[in-house]
């Protein structure tokens, strides 16, 4: 049976980005159809410049070393891989309007939609996750 994964990304730190993109790429590599709805701070994760320099949560700066030591891929690499494997990226129109951001403020290959777009996508998903 084909697996379909629907993810909501609503937070914008480096850790949030890893949670979202690790699960999304692992799912895509396991032949699942994957779609992510980026809303509020989650939009940082696909912002053209922002996704390259996501903040580490306060007091957790020492994790930086661990990421390097364990050879963890960078967020831009993971995002690129996710797109390459066909992960569907939906940016929240309403949040973009509130933040006065246009589609060209984001990485290429995204779709823009509202909550109803996500609901329609997720309506036949077997796995739904929120980060």
């Amino acid at each position, binding site marked *: 049976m084909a*697996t379909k994964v629907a993810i909501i990304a609503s937070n914008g730190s480096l850790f949030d980005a890893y949670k979202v993109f*690790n699960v999304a*790429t*692992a799912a895509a*590599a*396991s*032949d*699942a159809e994957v779609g992510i709805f980026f809303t509020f701070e989650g939009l940082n994760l696909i912002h053209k410049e922002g996704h390259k320099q996501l903040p580490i949560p306060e007091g957790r700066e020492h994790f930086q070393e661990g990421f390097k030591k*364990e*050879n*963890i*891929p960078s967020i831009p690499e993971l995002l690129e*891989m996710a797109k390459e*494997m066909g992960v569907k990226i939906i940016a929240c129109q309403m949040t973009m309007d509130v933040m006065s951001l246009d589609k060209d403020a984001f990485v290429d290959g995204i779709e823009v939609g509202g909550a109803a777009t996500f609901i329609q996508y997720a309506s036949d998903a077997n796995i739904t996750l929120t980060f």
Partner: protein
Amino acid sequence: MNADKVLDAKGLACPMPIVKTKKAINELNAGEVLEIHATDKGAKSDLTAWAKSGGHELLQDTEDDGILKFWIKKG
């Protein structure tokens, strides 16, 4: 064990071993065997689960001096 292709995923962290394995197996035909070398300690459970969800068969896995080796037959 004979393999049709060998993938070196040593030094890579989750989810890269899975992503690289997926790419490598795409280049094989059904019935051919991919041999994977990894050092990510999560790879043992991850590759086992990955093979299952993709309809592939994990033929054998070994661990020697921190190097995990897997032989997966493409389904």
